[in-house]
Structures are given as C-alpha cells and as structure tokens.
C-alpha cells in the first residue's frame, strides 16, 4: 500500500515497507541526496532534515511515522536558486570542507534560527551537539551560524578576514 508524504512542498506516493527509514526514501526513491547516511543510528546528524520545522534524524524515522507532517530537506531551503542567509553564511565562513556533514549541519542550525533568531554561543553549541564533522570545521560552523543570526553586526568576522 502506498504511503503519502509531503517533501519540500510536494506530495509523493511511496510504495515501500512502512518501516523503511525516511532517509532511504529521500535518497533512493526521490533522488534527494543532500541528506547523507553517516551511521544510520542517530549518532552523527548527517541525515538531519526538518519535520514540521523541527530537526530530525531521517535515518531513524520510519516512513510510516511521518504522517502528514511536512518534510523539508536541504534541497528545499534555497528559494528559486537563491541561497538562504544561513547557506550564504556557511559559504562566507568557509564552513564546508569535504561537505559531507554540511547539509545536516545547515538543517539543524536553520531549525534553531527559526525559533531563536539570536542564539548565544552556548545555545548554538548545545543545539549543534548531535551533529558531527570529521574535517574539523567546528569553529567555522559556529561562526557561520552567528553570522547568519545577525548579519548586520560584525560577529563572525574572524581571523580569515583579518589576514
């Protein structure tokens, strides 16, 4: 029996085992490969998407549990090809290195900024805790989030600009 889910504003009928993780559906059925598989165990955050605006590990969420909640992936963030403020800040702060963790990082951070547009350093660190990066981009990711949080101030202008 097909299960219907709404992803990035579009409704899809999916014919799959209801226990299949949402991540597999996004990647293998809908060709939305932005969300990544990093562990499948809720340990790394590479698969983070929004479900009704809240960050979720899509590797742990069974298809059948999505219901009529709205799923948003990194592909659904930019509007008409225009990057959103956070994506732009990730570029400006050179946050991406290999890039594998980045979709998950952006989605988790975006969820924070939507409920708290001006988070403090500690709040950001605590909120970003589930997401791992092996390239060591941590400082730049924190700065990118701060930069996006308040683009009008000089926060986030770090060593790189002071060369």
């Amino acid at each position, binding site marked *: 029996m097909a299960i219907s889910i709404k992803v990035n504003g579009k409704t899809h009928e999916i014919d*799959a*085992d209801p*226990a299949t*993780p949402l991540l*597999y559906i996004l*990647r*293998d059925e809908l*060709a*939305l*490969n*932005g*969300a*990544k*598989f*990093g*562990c*499948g*165990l809720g*340990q*790394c955050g*590479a698969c983070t998407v929004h479900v009704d605006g809240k960050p979720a590990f899509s590797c742990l969420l069974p298809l059948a549990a999505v219901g009529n909640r709205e799923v948003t*992936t*990194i*592909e659904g*963030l*930019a509007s008409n090809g225009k*990057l959103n403020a956070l*994506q732009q800040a*990730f*570029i*400006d702060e*050179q946050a*991406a*290195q*290999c*890039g*594998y*963790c*980045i*979709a998950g990082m*952006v989605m988790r951070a975006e969820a924070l900024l939507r409920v708290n547009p001006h988070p403090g350093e500690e709040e950001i*660190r*605590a909120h*970003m*805790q589930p*997401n*791992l*990066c*092996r*390239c*060591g*981009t*941590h*400082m*730049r*990711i*924190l700065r990118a989030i701060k930069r996006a949080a308040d683009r009008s101030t000089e926060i986030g202008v770090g*060593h*790189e600009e002071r*060369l």
Partner: protein
Amino acid sequence: MNYIGTPISRVDGQAKVTGQAKYAGDVNVPGLVFGAVVTSTIAKGRIKSIDTSAALKVKGVLKVLTHKNRPALPKSDQAWKDDIAPGGSPFRPLYDDKVMFSGQPVALVLAEEWETARYAASLVHVEYAAKPHITDLQAAREKAFTLKKSKKPRGDAAKAFSSAEVRHEAEYFIPTEHHNPMELFASTAIPEKRGKLTVYDKTQGVQNVHRYLCSVFKKKKGDIRVMSPFMGGGFGSGLRPQYQVVLAVMGALTLKRPVRLMLTRQQMYGLGYRPASIERLQLGAQRDGTLHAITHEAIVVTSQFEEFSSSDTEWADRLYKSPNAKFVHKLARLDVPTSCDMRAPGATTGVYGLECAMDELAVALKLDPVELRLRCYSDKDQSVNLPYTSKNLRECYQQGAKAFGWEKRNPVPRSMRDGNELVGWGMATGVWEALQMPAAARIVLGANGHAEISCATSDIGTGTYTIMAQVAADALGLPIENIGIKLGDSTLPQSPVEGGSWMAASVSHAILGVADEVRKTLFDAAKKIKGSPLSGVKFEDVTLSDGKIVSKKDPARAMTIAHVMRERRLDRIEKEKLHKFKKDEKHARNTHSAIFAEVKIDEELGVIRVTRVVNAVAAGRILNTKTARSQIMGGVVWGIGMALHEETAYDHKFGRIMNANIAEYHMPVNADIHDIEVIFVDEPDEHINPLGIKGVGEIGIVGTAAAIANAVYHATGVRVRDLPITLDKLRR
C-alpha cells in the same frame, strides 16, 4: 598574480551547502541494485559453511555472493597490488574460506532495496572454525621485526646516552585510531554498453582504483572508468582501493545491473587504520641544553599478510642537532586488517613521542621548552646531511609564542589556575615532508575566453578545485569565473593519489606547465597577425594577463586573447602536458610548525578542556590562505581528538573492536573545540619549486597532541604517556 595567495572562497561551496555535490553513494540510476555485506565475527580461522537460504527467500533479494559462488578472481598477489600497496599479499574479498580479521567480508547480498539487502544480510548464517588469534600489540611486541635493514646509526647513541649529564628515557603509546570520515565507503558500479563499466567510488585516487580494477577483473583500460567528483573526507583511508569497490563491480558484472554498495559505519572498522604504536625515546643532553644522544625506537602494528610501514622515528634528525643518533622501526603482526596511512602517517605518532620526551627533558634541565628547542635547532636534515630548501621554524616559535603569550608562563606545574580549574600551557614542534609528484593537466581554452582545466586528481575536501582554478586563472590571465575545473575522473590527465600533502604543488605546476604551452600557441598565432603589436617581441617576454597576451616590457604591446583566436580562426586551443619536478639532490624538503596549547582542568572532576591552540606554520607559499587555514584547523582538531578522545578499543578475547561506532569512538565535537588560531609565517622558498609551495594537509596535526599532553602535565604535574589522556589516567 591576482589569485594565488589570496583567501578566495572555495569554488565548490555552493554545491556543498545546497546538497548538490554528488558523492559516490549519491548516484541514482534506473534499476539500481543495493548491496549489503556480511562480515566475519571471528578474527582468525576458516569458514566451515555459509547458509544463504533464508536470505535468498526474502522478497527482493537477487543474489548472495560468497567465496563459493563468486566469479573467477586472479590468484597472483601482483594482480591485487594497487599503486601504493605495501609488501605482502593484498587482501581479496570473498576469495576463499580463510578469515584473517574480525569484520572481514564473507558474503554480499544484492537486492532491489537497501532495506531488503540489509535485512537479508542479517539472515546469512556462517559457521566458523576459529583459530587462536592475537590483537594486542603489547603481547606481540617481543616478536616485532624490522622490515628493511635499519639505517646505520650515527655515532654511538647508547654510549653517549650513558655518559650524558642529563638523561630522559620513556615509552609512549598511541592506540589504534580510525579515520572515520563522515562519508562511508561507497561505490556505485554501472554497466554500460559493450561490456564497459562506470564506477563511482569513494577514493583519493581514481586512477589507482582504475588500474586495480582493470587488473583484478582482467579488463582493458578503456573498459572501466572510475569517477569521484566529491569525497566526504579521506584522511588516508581512501588511498588504497577498498573492498567495497571490488564487491560492487563483482555484483554489477554478475547481475548485469548497476549496483551500489555502501558500507555501514561498523564495517568501516574492518578497513585500514592508524596503527597502534609504542614509541621508545632516549635523550641524553649536557647541562647547557645541547643534545648528545637520541635513540628512537618504534613498534607499530601491521597485519599478518601485509607489511604497512611509515616512518615514525627519523623526525628528530630533521629537528634537533645530535652527534649520536639511532633509529629503529619495527613491525608487529596482529590478526587485524592491514594498517594504512592516516593524516601525517608516522609523524603524528613519532613526533608525539619525541616532543613529549623533549618536554620531559626540558623539565629535567630546568629550561624553558622553547629555549631547549632553540638550543638544539638543526639547520640541516642530519639523516641526509643537507640544508633545507627553506626552514623558518625559528619564526614559528617566535610568532607562535608571542601570539599565545608564552612569556607569561610560570614553569612550575600546578602553578596557574582559573577559578576551580588548573591551567596548563604546553608546546611542541611539528614537522612533515614537502613532497611533490609528477602530474599532468589539460587546458581547453575557448575563443570566448573561458578555459576548462582538467586533471584526474581528487578533491578530498581540501580545496583542490579551488586552488586549481586560482593557479589557472593567474597562469592564463583570466578572471577566475571563466575557469572551469574537471577532476576525479580516471580518463583525465595523469595524477597521483591525493595524499601526503603533495597535491597542491603537483597539480599547480602541472597547470603552470601546460599554460605555458597555451601561451606559446597564442604567441605564435599573435605574431602571424598582420601588423601585430607583438612582432619582434621575444616569447620569454610575453605574459597572459587581463585576457590579453602582452609584452612584459612594454604593456602597450598587447592583443586580447579573443582577438588573436578570432583572427587566426582558432575556436579552441587544447593542450596537455605531464609535469615532472627537477631533481634537487642538494636540499632537504620539509614543512615545520610550532604549536602552543592551553588546557583547563577541573581540579575535582579532572575534566580536560583545550581552551586555546596557536599553531604557527612555515609551509612555503600559501596558495589560498582560506582553504589552507581550514586544513590546519582541521589538523589541530584531529590533534585534540588524538590527545584526549580517540581510541579504537579491542576486546582481545574475541579479537574484535568494541567501539565500532561514532558514539563510542569519541572524536571532537562542537562542544570540544574552542579557540584555534593559525599563523602562516612567511617562508619564501626559491629551491623547492617555481611557486614555492610545500602543502599543508598534514602539518596541522603533527605535534598538536604533544603540545596538549605537555600542557596537561604543566597543569597537573601528572605525566600521562599513553594516549588518549582521559580523566581516569590523571588519577592513577
């Protein structure tokens, strides 16, 4: 030059923040089949039987391959050797019934859905006949052996040590560590028309994988194409082809359908790793702080079937003057997969031992650790008795110390605090090689002023796309927006594997070399144009700049590239060239760094935080200060992990890894990383290569763990020599 040396943002940034960058497991093709691997649960022995019947009954399962029903595979070791295989007999998946390590692939399930494949894999039942195994380095150290004849010692280190006024002798230990790139090893093998195959693979060297697959599957060069446009981190784990690419191809050839095989996180621990090592140091000095004897002996893990070896021990010869020196590198065989390169292999571990030992010697001598290093400073690489192409390590010590505020350090352990926390300041030196390899590049310059640059190199996240564009834009005198980069495709011009920090220098000079050919073609064409302002100008005197070919002596004598190409009816200029570096037997080539670290340790709980790191690096000319800085920061984060968190823990009874997941294999997370400052000291280098580039991928990690360990000692007065430094060890 407009772009080289500037902090331009990476050209692939947009693809990465929008989810558009395609990694090896992201390729979707119609009819894709999914693979799942079954791995061994014993460390040594034989497979008695494999029962695949339950798996085969699952709806959607297409095939289960084991050593019993796999397609033919070559017998000879030679057929399985990749470009950088060490000595020995390489591992081959599903080859026979022999089990050589826990986590070895023993079956491949192929199914219509990944979920199905993974479920069916859990139903494959394997019976083993286990044999006694050994996975503990300490238990195997007595049987360790040297691979090649060790270099002749300099002088008599043992004698000089016993007569030295101040002696320090200790053993340091670094456990096995795993790379744990966030991207899992994955391959997508797609059969094409006429028996051809395209393989998307997670690899640091598409041409290495290409040659390997052609050899293993007895295919002609043109039959297989290996692609890796993006890689989610390698750190050395992707230098050699991994078994999943063999299995994906095996599956695709068997089913004649495209197959994707992505390993699980747990299965990643069945691949290569940084080998555990014991580093034994003996330093003998006079009271004035001059060294008279250095002995460094390492015992490092390898497998039963291959001899992976990197140089742990000779770094002291590059850093510290000593008339007597002895270096011995031994390997110990365990029932584990073959160890492999991992970020600054050999140096990360060897220099950790050396730099902690130097700190202990400084304490014994009552000398400031920086001062001790300056007193022993070597202007030569004593192992080859050659001066350096450049070595500005003195400046690293100076600038690093200044930025850190080192002069305010009270040398007495436990003397500095901040509220409830003990504060410790430590430092160490870092050193790595400045390597460069032959590489080729192709330029296709169009009449519209756009150029496409290609090379088979990978971009493992380091920023190769970006620096290639920078170098090409400068060499061709074009705006960077007009440059397109193609890489990660085995059909492109020759490239070595990307590792060892050699790619920046190698590919940059390949581009410069071929850009010269383009300039020559343009120059010849320009001269033929009637009334050419360049007639009479010599080739050596023209350059490409601002979209023009122009005389360096008289900038008024110029023509736009577009004009030249139009006039001569050239719609494109295509050139390819292999670049080899001139041999220089008169210099040693290294990068250097000085690392200063601050730790704060909760006195009651023992919780350690690395609150500040300054890493001052001398690495020749920096092509892109932004991407290079990211590399160093990443290296420092790895150093923090090595010092405080990372350890692959074995259950020696079962010969199995206990923490084969990223919740229990601890690596630094956002909450662990505080202030990291990177300084690039000026280091002009006229000898190494025309651009003066040395590479920066590895140097950031080397020495960092030692600086932190030394800071922990300074904070607490407790010397922990076996990594990682966890709070329980402070209470021993």
